[in-house]
């Protein structure tokens, strides 16, 4: 039997707990920053000072909290702090990289830089990266033209026709293995194939496209597969029940429903290969001239050009490398933006 006293004690559960003031994290952060500044003034390096300040913040706030709010509150404060810290660790290098590229590269950009190649017909002619921009676009578009149909159709086979049979499982396994192929191996493969077919010392932009498509196909297959699997079976059955053949159901119902995601996946795969250097050094070579024909002759891309300029190492070459890096990042960003917009346009609408 429980006594009346006990019952009353159990019934009255306090809902109000002592809390730290709202500004507590800010106060502690201020103290931590002050500590960091003090260490800097005392002659410590920037990195250790920042690390010590961050650790101080992560320790002091939970400690304060454990005395006022209890264990659960302290754990909450600590995990919140850790998650913010990891977020910053992830973002700081990215922002710093972008900022450096913009700061060092944007100044080099002008009309001449974008419209002249390295090829000089006069000694005092200005140089630009036009040939590398063209090379990047042609080789990447070539890679996309090869990989998108192959990748999307392979994914359609895996999801719509394979249905986990042995062949589909084997393909999935091989695609997973292909995802991990080092890019230089893809370059060597393309190099070997084109050397076998066309003889030694063959270089062309198309060879580069083939090498890049080897890297791109598995990403496209994976992304498309995921998106197709998200399309509910209800929709397929609804189409079958209207007397629609399977291929038409796939083309008219399943693909449009998944289109936004598939396009995003394709764009991400393109962004991934647009920055490849190693395979292109092998098979596409490098040139100073603008080469519009992907099937004949060497073709320079932006990453290869950056690599080459960096090897030369003098000040004008370095400036060109930064400028080219800036243009490369702009191209990737534009691609991503386009993917987002296209994905929005094709996403299934509500309301």
């Amino acid at each position, binding site marked *: 039997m429980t006594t009346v006293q006990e019952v009353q004690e159990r019934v009255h559960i306090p809902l109000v707990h002592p809390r730290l003031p709202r500004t507590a994290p800010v106060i502690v952060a201020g103290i931590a920053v002050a500590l960091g500044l003090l260490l800097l003034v005392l002659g410590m390096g920037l990195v250790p000072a920042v690390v010590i300040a961050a650790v101080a913040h992560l320790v002091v706030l939970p400690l304060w909290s454990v005395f006022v709010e209890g264990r659960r509150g302290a754990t909450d404060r600590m995990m919140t702090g850790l998650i913010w810290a990891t977020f910053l660790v992830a973002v700081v290098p990215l922002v710093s990289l972008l900022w450096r590229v913009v700061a060092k590269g944007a100044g080099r950009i002008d009309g001449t830089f974008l419209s002249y190649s390295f090829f000089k017909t006069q000694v005092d002619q200005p140089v630009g990266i036009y040939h590398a921009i063209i090379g990047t676009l042609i080789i990447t578009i070539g890679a996309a033209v090869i990989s998108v149909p192959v990748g999307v159709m392979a994914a359609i086979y895996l999801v719509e026709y394979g249905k986990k049979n042995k062949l589909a499982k084997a393909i999935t396994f091989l695609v997973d293995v292909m995802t991990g192929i080092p890019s230089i191996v893809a370059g060597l493969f393309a190099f070997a194939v084109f050397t076998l077919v066309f003889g030694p010392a063959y270089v062309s932009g198309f060879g580069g496209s083939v090498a890049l498509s080897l890297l791109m196909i598995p990403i496209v297959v994976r992304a498309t597969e995921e998106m197709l699997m998200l399309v509910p079976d209800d929709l397929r059955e*609804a189409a079958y*029940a*209207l*007397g629609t053949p399977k291929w038409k159901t796939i083309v008219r119902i399943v693909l449009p429903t998944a289109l936004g995601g598939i396009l995003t996946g394709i764009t991400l795969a393109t962004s991934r290969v647009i920055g490849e250097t190693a395979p292109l050094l092998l098979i596409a070579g490098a040139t100073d001239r603008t080469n519009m024909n992907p099937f004949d002759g060497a073709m320079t891309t932006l990453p290869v050009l950056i690599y080459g300029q960096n090897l030369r190492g003098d000040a004008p070459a370095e400036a060109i490398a930064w400028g080219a890096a800036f243009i490369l990042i702009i191209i990737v960003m534009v691609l991503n933006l386009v993917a987002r917009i296209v994905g929005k346009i094709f996403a*299934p*609408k509500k*309301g």
Partner: protein
Amino acid sequence: MSKSIDVSDVNIYYGDFLAVQGVNMSIRAGAVTAFIGPSGCGKSTFLRSLNRMHEVIPGARVEGKIVVDGQDLYGPGVDPVAVRRQVGMVFQRPNPFPTMSIYDNVLAGLKLNAGKLKKSEADAVVEKSLRGANLWNEVKDRLNKPGMGLSGGQQQRLCIARAIAVEPQVLLMDEPCSALDPISTSAIEDLIHELKDEFTIVIVTHNMQQAARVSDDTGFFNLKATGEPGHLVEFNPTKKMFANPDDPSTEAYISGRFG
């Protein structure tokens, strides 16, 4: 035109598992036939075998004869796609195509199968089908809005409009009201009454009152025992079924003594 369905000695399998055994029945043209029974007894499976949707699931197959309009649906050389154009289906959960507007959803079957339609013909089909599904007045001003923006009951009626737009001979409904509120349910039941002049309707339902309200004939499915295949216990006019069933287990189920 509506057609009758004659079912003889049908066994339905999922791989090696026999799900439904030895079904014989004759579904009348221009009438509403309801299937009732406890969960897992195979009524939905049987319904899906009536338009060859069952075999969409890997390893699933059907033995026996299902004759519509003198043709065996499972005869050699029969194209399941052709069967499904004659025997339409409405599913448990409303499933309008998310990429299409209300207008395109109604026309989906015609556009996917026949290709181009004239604008005036298309408009006429959309209006006729939506009126047929009692949805016209609610959506006529927003035909170009996405079908997913409608309420659940409206989506289900949109799916019915989509199914009747291809003018099938038979309309199968797999628990069409189980995801809907009572008002939408009542709208769809009224609709079933109107549609039975034009289509042979077969409906699976868990709701005994619904079976009693909408159907002319009722089939009661049950499992012989747990793990055994489902079978058709009794098939009779609904009035007789609910007043004076032949089989004691039907009476037990209907009166709520089990299941």
